[in-house]
């Protein structure tokens, strides 16, 4: 089971939207994923517990990737195509 988190400034609106889109994409790709959403502040301190962190491109600099954790920055948060392309590019599926 892949552990995924979507992060945005306040952990409310944007990350919720990203979360819904990511879940759709993983479902379509038949990947089992547990998707959470939270604020950047929280996600920063918990990033190492997740396999993938999704956020807006403008917030990418807030995160340091790790051995386990991949950071994916999105431009259009509503584009499932972009999410799918970036998941594949990062070698997650």
């Amino acid at each position, binding site marked *: 089971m892949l552990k995924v988190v979507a992060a*945005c400034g306040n952990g409310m*609106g944007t990350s*919720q939207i990203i979360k819904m889109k990511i879940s759709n994409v993983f479902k379509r790709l038949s990947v089992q994923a547990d998707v959470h*959403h939270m604020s950047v502040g929280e996600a920063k301190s918990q990033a190492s517990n997740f396999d993938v962190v999704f956020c807006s*491109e*403008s917030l990418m600099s807030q995160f340091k990737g790790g051995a386990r954790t991949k950071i994916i*920055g999105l431009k*259009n948060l509503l584009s499932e195509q972009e999410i799918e392309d970036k998941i594949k590019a990062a070698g997650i599926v």
Partner: protein
Amino acid sequence: MNSSAFDMVLVIWKGLFANIMAEPAIFIGLIVLIGYALLRKPWYDCFSGFIKATVGFFIMQAGAGGLVNSFRPIMVGLKDRFELQAAVIDPYFGFNAVNAAFAQMGWTTSLIMVALLVAFVWNIILVALHRITKIRTLFITGHIMVQQATTGLWLIFIGVPFMQNNIYGVVACGLLVGTYWAVFSNLTVESTQELTGNAGFAVGHQQMLGVWITDKVAGKIGNKEKSVEHLELPGFLQIFNDNVVATSTLMLFFFGAILVVLGPEYLAKNKFFNPASGELFIKYIFKTTIQFAVYLYILSAGVRMFVAEMTESFKGISDKILKGSLPAIDCAAVYGFDAAGGNSILFGFLFGAIGQFVAVIALIAFHSPVLIIPGFVPVFFDNATLGVFANKKGGFRGLAIICFCSGLIQVFGGAFAAGAFGLAAYGGWHGNFDWDTLWPGIGWLIQNFGSLAIALAIIVMLIIPQLQYRRNKKGYFAAANPDMEPELSTNPA
């Protein structure tokens, strides 16, 4: 109906009211449950949705209770020593203030949730009738919907006596707020689509009027060739991307200043501060002000939990009914499209903050009866959003002027509203751009002209999309969504 049957109906109604209607956490849980059931989700999803919505709401209430307590020394002290009231302009503090006011009046906050439902359904109807209404957008930003329905209902309950604490007020609020969601998110379609290169969403947040004004004005006062992209920012501003750090810093600064002015003697005399225990004043200030961040964090965690369930259930239902309407979502969704690679966000925040500080000093200098304390959400999210739109059309100069002015407007509009609508007594006002401009105007009209003002506001708002349509008949629906109505669109995807 004979009397015993009538008695039974009454008993059932009273039971429903006491156990569900008067208990908003359970009520919102049931709304989610019904939504999931309509979406034919498996029973365990329905159950967990119900539980998370209910638990989330209770967590939010725990945070709200803590905030009210943290506020006490400051509210009491300012009133006592300076005859001043203080209000934080922030949607969560505003929400908290209305909830505290509802509790004091003996009104149930479940009515807010009913108003929210009416508003959401009304927005769906307006989109479904888009051939007549010219509305293209459905507002789905759940946490904002909760906050706006809350403030809207307060404005109506205190402004119109016959609508107070009853279903008339709830329906009127639903129609008024639902119209605002539909019309003003619809107003951001062109500018947002242009900014994002037709990403397929509109802004559904708290500064939609601000976005529209910015889009119209920025190009005239600035030069888009001179973008903020070419400017270096001091690195420490990065910390404001983290809401915990940002809130704590703002609260430490502003509430700390107030506590220093109140002084250790006063606070010790009133048993808020206990020097006899060896506690230092500086530690007392730090601990007291940081509590705001603590409870705000708890409150937000609760809101996040129940809103996530609510949004999923609402979104699912609206997707079923309305194929292809444009979703109006959180303003932060535009941040990824900043032409200056994120610089506009921090510069917008910076100039907005300068505007707010100048305005707060002006309030003190002119002895305003209401002192405004800048909250994090309006100063950051409104001004960052306006900054992104302003930089696109008007470069650095456009951004600087618009965000500075927005900061001034937020504080002055907030000070007026917090005083005029009685929420300064509870320590908060909604405080985002539209709630410091458009809504104080609507609220003032309601206070002076009652239900007539509500009807008038709805009608005037509904005329706006008609005017937009008339100016651009050909591209109007295509701008929103090429697949919304193929026969209406000139450019099917």
